[in-house]
Every structure is written in C-alpha cells, then in structure tokens.
C-alpha cells in the first residue's frame, strides 16, 4: 500500500515529540487560538477529504462531510478530553457522517458513482485520476471494465463493509484502529473486511 497508516501519521511515525506538539496544538485551539486550529485542520484535512471522497464517490458530498466534520470539531473541541487520540475522534465524526450519507443513499437507491453525460451514464471511477500507486505499468493496464466492476461492487457493500474496506485497503489503517473509529471490536471489523473481500473476489474472480 502506498499510503501510510493515518492512525500513526502524527503520533507513531514522527515520534513522541509530535504527539506532544499535537497535544499542544489541540490545547491552544481549545483556548481559542485560531491559527492552532487551522494547523490542526491542515494536518488532517487531506486524509479526511480522501476518505470521504472515496467512500461517497461524490465531490459535493465529500465537501459537505469535510465541512460538517471540521465544524463539529471546531464547536466541540473544548470538550475533547484526550480520552482517545484526536485522530480516532476525528475519524469517528467523519465515518459517522459518511455512513449517514451512505444509508440515506441506500434508502433512495442512488448510484452516486455514475453521472449523466451526453454519451449516457459515465463512471466516475473509470474517469477519475489514478493515484500515485497507479504509476506501476501493470496497474495502468487495468481495464475500464475491471474498474467499473470494482465500482459496482463497492456500491453493493453495506456502508460498514465499505467503510472498513476503504480504511483498511486504501487508508492503511489497522483493524484495531478501525474498530475504535466505528465503535466496535477489532473482531467485528475483521469480519466486515472478510465479507467485503469475499464480495470483491466473487465480483472480480474472472478478471484476476
């Protein structure tokens, strides 16, 4: 996986000093220091947007989740008591908002990953810019058909399966951290991942 584990991007990889820096930043933001809050946003907002965009596959919805998540952080930061890591707290907010969006879509039976175009429905996944991992020549050969199949299979996953799959496969988070974010156990997150990969295997079996 090309992307690092966001659950350790601040606290783990950069070491204890960074944890202290982040705590100091949070405490300053709690006291109303606006520039500390901005720094906190800048440390996490690319990950937040990437997660929301990949889960919801809609720029508009991803922007709404980004806005609402950080506004909630801004409003409630004073009540943050360091009972869990800031990352876990933030991701809990973000995934809850994304799950709400996905559940509403299930009810409305929307197909957000396809948009109408002059040539008929267009698959966002097939036309989206590839990530840096796709610079591998083998990946570039990935046919539009396979990408479309992945897109459709993602739509068929339950919101929780999709969230666990996205956080584990693309965000590189550990199952234990995913369990914390979703308010469940590592074992339950593991089962969700099992089901998601099984569905992916069934859908893509003929291509791989």
């Amino acid at each position, binding site marked *: 996986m090309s992307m690092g584990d966001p659950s350790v991007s601040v606290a783990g990889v950069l070491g204890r000093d960074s944890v202290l820096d982040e705590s100091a930043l949070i405490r300053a933001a709690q006291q109303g220091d606006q520039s500390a809050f901005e720094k906190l*946003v800048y440390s996490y907002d690319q990950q937040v947007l990437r997660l929301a965009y990949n889960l919801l596959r809609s720029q508009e919805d991803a922007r709404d989740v980004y*806005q609402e998540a950080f506004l909630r952080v*801004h409003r409630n930061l004073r009540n943050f008591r360091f009972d869990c890591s800031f990352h876990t707290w933030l991701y809990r907010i973000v995934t809850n908002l994304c799950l709400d969006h996905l559940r509403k879509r299930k009810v409305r039976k929307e197909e957000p990953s396809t948009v109408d175009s002059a040539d008929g429905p267009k698959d*966002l996944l097939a036309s989206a810019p590839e990530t840096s991992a796709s610079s591998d020549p083998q*990946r570039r050969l990935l046919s539009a058909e396979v990408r479309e199949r*992945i897109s459709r299979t993602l739509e068929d996953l339950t919101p929780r399966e999709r969230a666990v799959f996205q956080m584990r496969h693309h965000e590189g988070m550990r199952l234990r951290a995913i369990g914390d974010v979703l308010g469940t156990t590592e074992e339950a997150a593991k089962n969700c991942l099992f089901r998601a990969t099984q569905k992916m295997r069934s859908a*893509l079996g003929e291509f791989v």
Partner: protein
Amino acid sequence: MTCQDVRTLLPLYLYGELDFHQEEEFDRHIDACSGCARALEAERVLHATLDGGHLAPPPALLASSRARLFGEIRASELARPTGLLDRLRAAFSAPLWKPAAALALAAVGFLGGRAVSPSAPAAPVTASRVRFLEADGRGNVNIVLEETRERKLSGALSDDGIRQLVLAASREQGDPGLRVESMDLLRRDSSATEVRRALVAALVSDPNPGVRIKALEGLKQHAADPEVRRALSQVLLRDDNSGLRAQAIDLLVQHKNRDMVDMLQQLVRSDSNDYVQLRTRRILAEMNASADAF
C-alpha cells in the same frame, strides 16, 4: 493449519493482520502446499487490482473545501459577541433577561442620580471610577469620581465629525468587535483618502483577521492604487491567514504588471496554501514567467 484455514486467512495475511504465531504457521503451510501457494498468488493479484479502485480527490476540491470551512468559521466568529457593547446587546436581546435588565438599568439610574446630585445631567452614568480620596479631618471623606457618560450621536458617514469618530473607533485596540464594525462602515465609502489609509493600515497591521478581511473588502475597488497594491503584497508574503492571502492574490492580479513577478516567485517558494500556490503558478505562466527565480 489446514488448507481451509489458510484460504480463509489469505486477505488478513496480505493486510498484515495475523498475529505472530498465525503468520508463522501460515508461512510454513504455504512453503509446503503448492495449491495454497497458487491461491495466495491469486489473492495478491486481486489485492493489487483493488488498488485501482482508489480515487484521488482533485486538488481544487481541497482548496475549495478549506476556503468554505474557514469562511464559515470566520463568519460565525464575526457574528459572535466580542466587545462590551456586543455582550450588552446580546444580553438585552435575550427575551428572558429583558425585564431583569431593564429593572437593573432603572436601579442604576435612580441610585446614580441620588448619589451624584439632584441636578445631575440627564445622560446616565455608564461607568465610574474613584480617582482620588482623602479624609477632611472632620469625619468626612472627599472623593473625586471619574465618570463616563454615554452620548448618542447620529449622522451620515460623509459628515466629517461622524467619520472622525468612526476612524477613531477603527483604532480602538481593546475592542476587536468595535474595529470590525468600524471597518464595515468605512468600507462602504472608501473614496476619501483618510478612509483608504485607515483601511490599508488595518489590512497590514490589525491583529484580528476579521478586521483585516473587512479592510480588504473595502479596498477591492482600489486594486490599481499603488499604496493598496503594496499592502496586498505585504498580506501575500506575511499574513498567516490563508483565506486573506487567497483573496489578496485574486485582487492583486486584476491588474497584472511585470513588477509583480519577483514577489510572485517568492510566494511560490514560501506559501504553503494549495490555492495560493496554484493561482500564483497560473498567473506566472500567463505572464510567461518562470515559477522559479534564477
């Protein structure tokens, strides 16, 4: 570990989620079982294929999300009561407190009037401070009381007296709320030189970003003025508020000239904001100038 166990654990193995003992057993089984080794390779291909399902958010999406977020936060901060006047206004506008506040004001007026003298002026005392006191030797105390009285004035901003008071309020260091309101008034009529100078001074030196934003809005119609352009350049290079820098560059490039190139190249090297970076690089390209300084 059986073949069935191994097939079940394939995805967790690739995600590195097996514990040490399970991974040891898994590796031993794969070394000895060619069927499971082939299944592992197939799982690896699936795993790599799924990487292709990742979407990279467009850079403009991040920039616009940030601008929207900080815009909303700034707006809510500006709407929040900051100065004494705002706090009083907020207190008086709360329906439950209205009767109590009115009673309190009446009591202050009544007691104040009695304490000062029966012939005290009609304007109520809004604040007082004991500046001096002494015993007169006959059992009395002489007190010098410093009082602030409220006086209401009304007039157009074009009236010089009113404008001077608003300009004075725009420099009131202890009350950012008052400065924001002053800027909001001044920006509506920035044709007078002294008003423009006050807006420029606030833009480059006021510590409150809300005041600086109002000042910048007031200077929009003067984007060609050399003094305003110097101030915008300072904002771009020095202001720590990315929203302000983004607005400053939009304003500055309304009138492009070659003198800006050095400053823009410096900006490309130093600014961490995605929007400012993108915009600056695009402007340099439009001006046929390199993003790098040589």
